[in-house]
């Protein structure tokens, strides 16, 4: 199937030229492409490229018409399938349609109709057929303690499956905090020694799309980028696409003016909460959380947690389960000393102080005695 181009496939689906161009526009938005790449690359006459912002849509239209669909293998390890749920329930139908049209999902445990050996065989076939070309999407962390026995599929460990599937992948996309940074399974004391994909696979390009769940538009936008440009978008130091993770929630928060004015909700049902004041005091992690929740939002841009009255949990950051209590202010120390510790510190100080005083006294007495002797 992927031998035909995306353009041909869309035509077969009965999608008109007009709808196609609209989709390209949506993709441009989703990928955050404000400006088109250099003119030559788009292959369009210069006068067409001068039209502001439409240039990038033209570029995408060109690419989609001529490129083949990209096969995707979607693996789930220590996960909750929440990221898959998010993708399937994404309320940007044009975008999802486009992505479903421009990629072919060859293997997905939750979505595929086939099960058991049938499904496994489909995966193996796809791996052989598209070796070196497919995108591997990973959802869920990989437990490595005791040779990875804490997560097995068809009798094989997650670690084993990941390594095998990663070999033939063109690129790997870790969707969700678990696949990216270990997520919930990694929370202290991390009994299964759960790890993110990028810690285990170092010889392939790995993109992290953290979140709990990952924003579907971020996942699809990254896949779309790969489809259009044949490569991965620009990444930050945690391997997150800068398009979606360059700014903090705080930077784009609709409650930001209240933060600046120092107007905070003190509890979830006080006057401040009703007036939509800043949720900083209720534990909001927005200032240190890089994500596009506040701009892309969820459910077709309907809302996001802070808009709905709940502080940001910081789910796009590493160690988000151990980064302080969800409802504890962000400025609060992560490990405040216990009463016992403080008591021990006081005792130690007192002992030192008394010791110093005793030493002083001995010295004083010695000095007095000397004085008397001399006198």
């Amino acid at each position, binding site marked *: 199937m992927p031998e035909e181009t995306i353009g041909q496939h869309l035509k077969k689906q009965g999608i008109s030229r007009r709808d196609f161009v609209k989709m390209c526009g949506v993709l441009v938005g989703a990928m955050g492409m404000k400006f088109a790449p250099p003119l030559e690359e788009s292959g369009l006459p210069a006068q067409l490229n001068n039209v502001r912002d439409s240039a990038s849509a033209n570029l995408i239209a060109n690419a989609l018409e001529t490129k083949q669909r990209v096969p995707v293998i979607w693996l789930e390890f220590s996960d909750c399938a929440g990221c898959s749920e998010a993708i399937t329930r994404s309320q940007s139908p044009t975008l999802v349609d486009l992505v479903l049209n421009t990629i072919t999902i060859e293997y997905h445990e939750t979505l595929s109709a086939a099960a058991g050996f049938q499904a496994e065989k489909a995966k193996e076939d796809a791996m052989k057929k598209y070796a070196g070309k497919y995108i591997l999407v990973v959802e869920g962390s990989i437990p490595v303690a005791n040779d990875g026995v804490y997560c097995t599929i068809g009798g094989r460990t997650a670690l084993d499956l990941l390594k095998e599937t990663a070999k033939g992948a063109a690129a790997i996309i870790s969707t969700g905090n678990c696949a990216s940074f270990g997520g919930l399974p990694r929370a202290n004391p991390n009994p299964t020694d759960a790890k993110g994909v990028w810690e285990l696979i170092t010889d392939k390009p790995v993109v992290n799309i953290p979140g709990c769940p990952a924003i579907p538009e971020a996942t699809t936008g990254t896949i779309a980028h790969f489809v259009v440009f044949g490569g991965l978008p620009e990444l930050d130091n*945690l391997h997150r696409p800068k398009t979606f993770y360059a700014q903090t929630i705080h930077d784009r928060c609709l409650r930001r003016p209240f933060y600046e*004015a*120092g107007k905070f909700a003190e509890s979830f049902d006080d006057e401040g909460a009703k007036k939509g004041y800043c949720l900083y005091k209720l534990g909001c992690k927005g200032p240190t959380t890089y994500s596009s929740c506040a701009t892309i939002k969820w459910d077709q841009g309907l809302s996001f947690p802070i808009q709905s009255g709940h502080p940001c949990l910081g789910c796009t950051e590493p160690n988000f389960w151990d980064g302080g209590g969800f409802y504890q202010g962000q400025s609060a120390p*992560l*490990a405040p000393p216990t009463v016992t510790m403080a008591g021990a510190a006081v005792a*130690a100080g007192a002992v030192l102080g008394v010791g*110093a005083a005793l030493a002083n006294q001995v010295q004083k007495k010695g000095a007095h005695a000397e004085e008397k002797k001399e006198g």
Partner: protein
Amino acid sequence: MNWESTLEFARGPFFQVALLVFIAGMTYRLVAVLALGWKADKVKSKGSKVNGIAMSFAKGILIWPFIPWVKNTFTRNPITYLAGGLFHLGLFVVIFLGAAHVLVWKSLLGFAWFSLPQPIVDWLAAGAIVAMIALFINRLVNPVLKLLTGPAEWLNWLVVFLPMVSGYAMTHHVIPEYDTLFAIHMLTVDVLLIWIPLSRISHFMFYFFSKAIHGSDFGKRAVTP
């Protein structure tokens, strides 16, 4: 080592250790002073010790700051007096009444109090920073202060100045990377906590200590100033 893990370290284990060093160090300083010994005071009490202590604090905190011209310190070096006053006021408000710091107290003590609106805290923080710069220049140019200032004084200045500037830069998003400034702020705060018991910044405690001792002496002799 990136900024995220630096921040985690500075907010987590390093802060814990720094705070414990601070508690142990301040206890040591206080006990060591108390254990120096007390001279027998054979004077017959003419007044009230408690009254003396209360008057001593009231004058030091509530009266002198508002009529500074009666003090010699003010007439001899007004910059030290005014900038010093502004600095202490700003620092107090930021540490005890700033929203972010109230949350720190809440997590350390288990309870908290009101916080002042951000603009008020902001202006006082800015005032405190400007005051510190004025004090710095004053130390550089005033001939008497020049003689009194050594490495320890410069270090004290720096150790207090860094958390203030980084905290101010953080709340005002001087650079977009909030976590970077947050990490720097926490690191400098941790250093400050460890440095306080070792330095003259410990006057934050000994001020109250000596005010109380002198106040009770004055009160007993009924010579409350």
